[in-house]
């Protein structure tokens, strides 16, 4: 299909990216979405808002995040030069804080006193609870009961930060059901409550707003790569759950036609097994959570439960802009299985001394393949969207590291590097 560098003009004024996006919401939420859109537009034009947000991003979150040359890891990627955009070093440990600080400031401008959020891995919930504490807002986080078990550490963090964590027991008890529950809370409490959505999906203007708050990742990285390497990268790689870290790093590269944008989706046990979360690779267009986009659905239009070892990618939907970038051919989306992601996770630990989030490990696995395909002259920019502290238990179980079982499970015992 055609490459359209003027993707910069999306979404249109009604929130559509081609056929995707829009607003598929109950009428009761339209006024609130209009209000957010109006305030966000005003805030974007207000130098005081920009100044306050960049002050928080710098003095509180620790931006700009560094760019690391992953030299020893690169040896496993066909010798291609792999550069890591270190969103894992942000306060709270992932890219999520960029969007959360922006929307929390917006909440204040909206005159609302309470924020609610959904969370899968718990990273967005932790970031939201953090911003609520910082700005004196009350905070409720909805989390699938299944995920509160998988991500117990983050549940404790949110509670320490003063948030109420509500385990969601409806439906599949994971992220999609947490989103349904948060929407229900929002409809009932929209007067004093802002729903601080954690990814670049949902009804207009959420995908636009979340993208704009994460664009800083790509803006910084583009300048950092140019300065470090003297040219643009050949590939920008990022994991895709709902798509926020990916759109954040992709966006400012969209007009650079020579830069390939590659999103890595969670393929779980393999797309062919049906147990996966690879929405674009294995799904079809439809409507979920307020927008038209690719989703995992059956022949009746019912959402199919997704599967991934990574709670943050375990979502049967994806943001509408990614669907559009896919259909126009400007970005490519590839599946990465649990096994591939965990191998890349282990490799980064041993070669670079960085424990990555399992989400981000999908992007690392993609970079290993892309490097082998492109060879040693290639430059691959990877969004290291988060750190893996929250995943230590999952990884220990996966590699059989518990109970002194190190021998049999050492994932890269034969590491040649």
């Amino acid at each position, binding site marked *: 299909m055609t490459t359209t560098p003027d993707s910069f003009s999306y979404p249109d004024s*009604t929130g559509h990216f081609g056929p995707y996006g*829009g*607003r*598929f*919401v*109950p*009428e*009761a939420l*339209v*006024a*609130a979405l209009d209000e957010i859109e109006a305030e966000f537009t005003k805030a974007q034009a207000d130098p005081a808002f920009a100044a306050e947000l960049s002050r928080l991003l710098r003095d509180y979150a620790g931006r700009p995040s560094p760019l690391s040359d992953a030299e020893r890891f690169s040896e496993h990627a066909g010798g291609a030069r792999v550069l890591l955009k270190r969103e894992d070093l942000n306060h709270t440990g992932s890219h999520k804080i960029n969007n959360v600080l922006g929307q929390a400031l917006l909440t204040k401008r909206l005159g609302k006193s309470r924020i609610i959020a959904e969370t899968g891995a718990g990273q967005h919930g932790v970031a939201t609870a953090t911003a609520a504490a910082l700005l004196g807002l009350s905070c409720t986080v909805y989390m699938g009961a299944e995920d509160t078990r998988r991500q117990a550490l983050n549940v404790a963090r949110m509670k320490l930060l003063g948030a109420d964590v509500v385990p969601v027991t*409806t*439906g599949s008890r994971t992220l*999609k*059901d947490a989103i*349904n529950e948060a*929407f*229900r809370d929002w*409809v*009932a409490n*929209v*007067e004093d409550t802002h729903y601080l959505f954690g990814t670049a999906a949902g009804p207009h203007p959420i995908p636009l707003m979340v993208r704009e708050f994460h664009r800083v990742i790509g803006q910084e990285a583009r300048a950092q790569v140019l300065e470090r390497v003297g040219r643009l990268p050949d590939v920008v790689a990022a994991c895709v759950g709902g798509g926020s870290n990916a759109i954040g790093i992709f966006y400012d590269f969209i007009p650079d036609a020579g830069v390939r944008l590659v999103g890595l989706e969670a393929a779980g046990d393999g797309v062919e097994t049906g147990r996966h979360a690879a929405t674009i690779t294995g799904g079809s267009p*439809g*409507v*979920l*959570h*307020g927008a038209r986009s690719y989703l995992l*659905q059956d*022949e*009746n*239009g*019912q*959402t199919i439960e997704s599967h991934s070892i990574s709670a943050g990618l375990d979502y049967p939907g994806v943001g509408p802009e990614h669907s559009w970038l896919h259909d126009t051919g400007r970005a490519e989306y590839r599946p990465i299985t649990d096994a591939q992601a965990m191998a890349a996770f282990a490799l980064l630990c041993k070669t670079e001394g960085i424990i990555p989030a399992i989400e981000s490990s999908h992007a690392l696995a993609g970079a290993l393949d892309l490097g082998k395909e492109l060879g040693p002259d290639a430059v691959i920019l990877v969004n290291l969207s988060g750190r893996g502290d929250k995943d230590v238990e999952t990884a220990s179980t996966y590699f059989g590291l518990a109970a002194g079982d190190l021998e049999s499970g050492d994932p890269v015992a034969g590491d040649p590097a």
Partner: protein
Amino acid sequence: MSVLADVLARSRAEHRSALIGYLPVGYPDVPTSIDAMIAMVAGGADIIEVGVPYSDPGMDGPAIQAAVDPAVKAGVGLRDVFAAVSAVRAAGAVPVVMSYWNPLEKYGVGRFAADLAAAGGAGAITPDLIPEEAGQWIAATDVHDLDRVFLLAPSSTDARILSTVAASRGFVYAASTMGVTGVRAAVSDAATTLVSRIRRLAPEIAVCVGLGVSNADQAAEVAAFSDGVIVGSAFVRCLLDSPDAAGAKAAGTLAAELAEGVRRR
């Protein structure tokens, strides 16, 4: 012409509101849910909202989700919904489908409209479809002479009330509270305010009110200011309490109570 507008006009001629009962197809199973709908018609429901089960019913509270989840798992789909529509029609009431948008989009909008018309349905209520996104649906309902019911909420602006009424045919659905479906103790003030705003701005369209009504007194209260009283969770509750023939019968008994309520003066 509009089948829904006609039945609401007939109720008005009798100086009463219409009773509109909602039930999802497929809980506890397809035949029992259809039996319950027929019992509701026998009890006095004028219009039956035939609900399409959906995996992510974001506008519904715990009662409806509890009934819909097993129906989704059992694979209940639009074929079963059309069977229920025909059964309601044969029982003498007006069937209107209630569905979140994705099951209809997946089936194919034009194909859905054609099959619904063939089954004898009056049209559909689409709680997560706003007129701005409804181009295809508006075209398909025009082709097949079907009604299309959009929702209004207490937060709707005057401009949106006007544009939503302009896009609707049959009636508009006034969601009486800000919140999801479920039984409520009191009828909210927001409902009367919303209905009078709609009446002032668009006196020509029928206004039906839903969300929270569960007994004859509440039905009478809502009937006093609306063209139709919509009851959902309370009927679903009958089947949740007794997921069998007795539950279906209980839904019929509740319909009879509510039918008395909408006739009170």
